[in-house]
């Protein structure tokens, strides 16, 4: 198992800027079974993450192990959802944008590690 949900959110939050989310607006609620609930607010590239519940445009529900697999790029949202490992309801466009950012970041990490080695 990879990082816990708490470690993952701690690693990116509580706020920041992601140029790849320019033009994107919306709120995502992550309900990670047994770990808690987090709200991610995206406002034209700026984002903030808070623990807690609230209204959202997109709700993602999963177990912690599946959640970390998706967040760390070992599984993609589409195959995870098709296997019933993850449920997503609401603005699926927002989900695809969020996934693209995760995959771009994974790409950047891979390029950086290639350069180092």
């Amino acid at each position: 198992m990879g990082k816990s949900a708490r470690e993952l959110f701690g690693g990116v939050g509580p706020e920041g800027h992601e140029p790849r989310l320019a033009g994107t607006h919306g709120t995502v609620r992550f309900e990670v079974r047994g770990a808690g609930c987090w709200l991610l607010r995206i406002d034209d590239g700026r984002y903030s993450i808070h623990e807690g519940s609230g209204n959202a445009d997109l709700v993602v529900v999963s177990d912690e192990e599946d959640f970390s697999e998706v967040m760390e790029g070992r599984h993609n949202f589409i195959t995870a959802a098709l296997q019933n490992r993850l449920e997503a309801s609401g603005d699926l466009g927002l989900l695809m944008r969020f996934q693209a950012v995760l995959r771009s970041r994974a790409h950047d990490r891979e390029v950086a590690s290639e350069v180092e080695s």
Partner: protein
Amino acid sequence: MSQVVSVLDGNTFVVSDRTGNIAGSPSEPHGLFFNDTRFLSRWVLTINGQRPGVLSVDDLNYFSVQFFLTPSSSTVYVNSGISLRRKRAVGGGFHEDLTIENHETGPVDLEIRIEATSDFADLFEVKDELAKRGEVYQRVEGDRLVLGYRRDRFVRETWISASAPEARYDEEGVSFKVRIPPQGSWSTCLEVVTAHRAILSSRITHTKYGHTGNGSSELARNTRAWIAQAPKVTSSWLDLPRVYDRCISDLAALRYETGVVPGCLPAAGLPWFMATFGRDSILTSFQALPFKPDLAKTTLEMLALLQGARVDDFRDEEPGKIIHELRLGEMTAFEERPHSPYYGGSDSTPLFLVLLDEYERWSGDAELVRGLEQAARNALAWIDQYGDLDGDGYVEYKSRNPETGLENQCWKDSWDSIRFADGRFASLPRATCEIQGYVYDAKRRAARLAREIWEDQELAERLEREASELKRRFNQDFWLQDRGYFALALDGDKQKVDSLTSNIGHLLWSGIVDADKAPLVARHLLSDRLFSGWGVRTMAEGDTAYNPIGYHVGTVWPHDCSFIALGLRQYGFAREAARLSLGVLQASVYFDGRPPEAFGGYPRDVTHFPVEYPTACSPQAWASGAPLLLLRTLLGLEPIGDRLLVVPAVPDTIERIEVIDIPGRWGKADAFARGQLALD
């Protein structure tokens, strides 16, 4: 007459025989399909143990059909006192109204049974005859029969219920014992629901469970409105509006609501390709622009969302690359196939840029072009950084996934399509000629967008420089001096693949052909070797691999011809464009106005009618889009600034063509043409 009856709504479709019965086998594509999964493989109605025979089938529209049946099971009609009506409408599964009438003077006792089973096959399994890995189950649950399939946490179910109180369920179907009085009737509704939470589909179907039937009437309204908003075509050639109307309704049927972006994009074709495709969705949207520009907007938005972000060998994904195909079945879910999504198409990325520019030219929707600026820049970066595998300045392909990836990543994507004239296979990586044309066109078009909308003069100048350099080199490196046409491809050893193919027509569409070479290319396209009289063959008669019913090595593809005709017209070959357009439109008439994916390449003067290709998809989106692009070509429709230019070049065998209410940045405009072009 087709032995198969299909009804569909987006990626839900039912394929049955002419009595409405479904008897799918592992290799037979009968069934109820949703999200690339067969939810029902057997649905067989019997009356007192006998399968009914068919009197007639009434295709009400693309999503509903009515079967008129009698208990006689043979093809010979036996006077019967009983008649049956089976009305089926698709949507979240399907809804079926079964009505039985007794025309006798006395009562009749009937045992009516519907046998229902499902193998939950992934479409890939149906196509490739593969075995399942999970467990199929059945159970009766109160007033319904549940058919299910489980593999780990992957669960798909089909729920079957009937409204009649006589319904008795067992694990293999539902039965009714009824007595129908003289001159009386009995009826039941049957509801078949595809139950699973589906990402990337607007239909979270189990919430729609119930005998309401409202779904289809909403669908009917929506479809009527979409068709009514299309421009109207009239002509002295009465078949022309028939072909046009049929294609518009087929495109309405193939619209696919992804649930990810608003609106619909065209799915590629029934039955194998009811999914989001890069190339097919882009080219169909391009063909439909003068008639249905909404398809292009949704296609561009959806493809931008799914654009590649990292290097992933399994999916052939690279940053900036546009998808080839997205599938939602079990084999995709468990990564036994790479379609989540799969990126094995090397032309989708430049074609995405081509469509983006063309959409703006017609619609004036600069806001979308601004919104997709980053996606367009990523696509441009992909062309130079990843598309060109060996740094020779051309985009070539070689799958990163030799096991389940595609060997050929151009539109002719069957394994045996890229061959030398003597039949040898070209080595990998392959740089097919039309992809270089698309790249040239994409860079020129992106330069216009950079200059006029993104306000990046530097980028515009760089792209124009690169495009012109590409054109110069391409006309040297791909030209076969002794033959007078362009090579199909450069292979892995930079050898020119010298077969004569329809791909050279796409080069005219892209504009990459030097003016002095264009007449030679046009002459080849209309020569006896390539032109069958109905259309341009994918490969010329006389090349070793040529086969008039070879998928990409001899058949005629209407969509292929439509882009070739536009290319001919753009280079000033109006007569040749008209001849080709007329041939394809006349062939379409033979297929009841519905051009198939492909038809045989036999010469017209030998067969006198176009010969059906055995397993062609029908309807197929870009085949249905072909007559639309051919109309554009015949009428010479071009957006010039905020006006619609109309410069017809119509054969003199057609007295007149009128297209009313062409939408665009000008509002609505009409086009009128008189046939004045002598073809012989």
